[in-house]
């Protein structure tokens, strides 16, 4: 018992590191841990090691919005949150933006845990029925998204260009290909445009209260929990694509969208445990590691993991708000231009380390592609074509 609690605690500490530093993904740590598992298993059993991984992965989904929103350096899961979050930061409402993602994360965590038995049932019955249709569903969402744009031709062009980029990058053999691609498309491109416009970060308001409409909040949490879990059933579809799907069903602007983005990654993480339990499939790196360690998951272990997720998530709320307040305070002391340059240099150092020199080429091309949407007033969701087009083609071809 003490071992398990210690594993949860250490997982939380590790999750703080992976969440706050851009580019360090849970999957990377899980893969390293797995390669060292022979050593660790000399001291602890497989369940304790799995608890550590799950605790780390869940807390990561809370904290990763901080570098996304404050620095514009996103992970896959929170890439779609960069723009609205960063916009709020430039209005002095960065803390509020983070808080909204925390509400989403915690709300959808509770949603998935409470509905876990229903999800187990849904997954085993609905998944086989939906599987042949998922390509068409995604395609219709993309068409709908493009028809809503004012400049439809341009939007379609950007979607296809990003899609071609995604397909090419996935075939390049680059390690962790999504890191340079998404950092370029959603992070670096935002930084360069802000630098050119000479924007400044105003003093950040840290308010304890947050005016929210109850109905809209519950709707956002519900959509996040439902769509986040649903995409967990299918290969290749993750929180980033889910954000595009979910945003088509939401009204009410930035606030609800941020709740959605926060919620999707957490819901998806917890739902991937359900996928593992019911379908014996691993949909993300953390669960791959757990699956390799455990081989089979028993009901008791599944329930234990849900409890671990709940503990880690509760700690996530406190820790994310704590770091968000701290960083908001520090951000006011630095010039925005310097901050942007710091992040650009950080990404330029991390990309060759994580993805090699070819990764730098991917970063440059992705940054250029990412700049097209804001410069032409087309929705940035179109750039998600990089992840959506390969999946649509795979399901349809």
């Amino acid at each position, binding site marked *: 018992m003490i071992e398990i609690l210690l594993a949860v605690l250490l997982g939380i500490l590790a999750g703080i590191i992976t969440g706050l530093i851009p580019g360090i993904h849970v999957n990377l740590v899980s893969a390293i841990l797995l390669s060292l598992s022979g050593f660790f298993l000399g001291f602890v059993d497989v369940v304790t090691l799995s608890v550590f991984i799950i605790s780390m992965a869940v807390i990561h989904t809370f904290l990763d919005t901080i570098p996304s929103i404050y620095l514009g350096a996103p992970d896959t899961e929170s890439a779609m949150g960069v723009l609205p979050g960063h916009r709020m930061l430039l209005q002095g409402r960065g803390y509020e933006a983070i808080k909204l993602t925390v509400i989403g994360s915690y709300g959808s965590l509770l949603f998935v845990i409470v509905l876990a038995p229903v999800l187990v049932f849904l997954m085993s019955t609905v998944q086989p029925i939906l599987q042949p249709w998922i390509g068409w569903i995604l395609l219709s969402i993309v068409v709908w998204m493009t028809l809503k744009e004012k400049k439809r031709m341009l939007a379609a062009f950007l979607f296809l260009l990003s899609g071609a980029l995604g397909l090419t990058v996935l075939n390049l*053999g680059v390690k962790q290909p*999504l890191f340079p691609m998404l950092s370029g498309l959603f992070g670096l491109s935002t930084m360069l445009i802000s630098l050119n416009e000479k924007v400044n970060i105003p003093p950040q308001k840290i308010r304890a209260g947050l005016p929210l409409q109850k109905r809209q909040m519950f709707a956002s949490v519900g959509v996040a929990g439902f769509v986040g879990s649903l995409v967990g059933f299918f290969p290749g579809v993750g929180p980033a694509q889910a954000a595009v799907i979910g945003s088509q069903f939401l009204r009410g602007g930035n606030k609800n969208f941020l709740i959605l983005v926060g919620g999707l990654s957490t819901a998806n993480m917890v739902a991937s445990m359900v996928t593992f339990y019911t379908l014996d499939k691993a949909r993300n790196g953390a669960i791959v590691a757990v699956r390799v360690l455990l081989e089979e998951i028993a009901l008791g272990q599944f329930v234990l993991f849900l409890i671990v997720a709940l503990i880690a998530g509760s700690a996530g709320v406190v820790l994310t708000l704590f770091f968000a307040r701290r960083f908001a305070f520090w951000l006011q002391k630095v010039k925005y231009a310097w901050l942007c340059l710091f992040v650009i240099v950080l990404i330029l150092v991390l990309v060759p380390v994580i993805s090699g020199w070819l990764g730098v080429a991917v970063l*440059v091309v992705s940054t250029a592609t990412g*700049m*097209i949407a804001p410069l032409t007033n087309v929705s940035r969701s179109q750039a998600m074509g990089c992840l959506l087009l390969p999946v649509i083609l795979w399901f349809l071809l």
Partner: protein
Amino acid sequence: MVMHDKTMLRLALLTSIVGVAMLFAYSEKFVVNEQTISRLDELPEGQEVDVTGVVLRVTDLDTVLFMEIAEEKVERVTVVLFKDRNVTVSEGDFVRVVGSLEEYEGKPEILANRLELK
């Protein structure tokens, strides 16, 4: 220096289109298969693979079976299967292998946990 939005857009479009074309030319293959898709889930090495192909060579030891199989694109890969019961595979058989992708002496290798004769 402030760059005009139009200049920036032209530069971005040019870099993007030329860049995608160059990366495309550089990529050795251009396919959408299960492995491409699993990269979207950012699965680390040791990821699950599922390949189907013709058996080119079999080395059957007591407890372990090594195979060379050619996939439909005629790409060779070594498959290792630790046997828990008697398994017979002959060259020329068409098999489906589900397992994890590992690296052995710098070369990719599939550690099979399921083998189906087609």
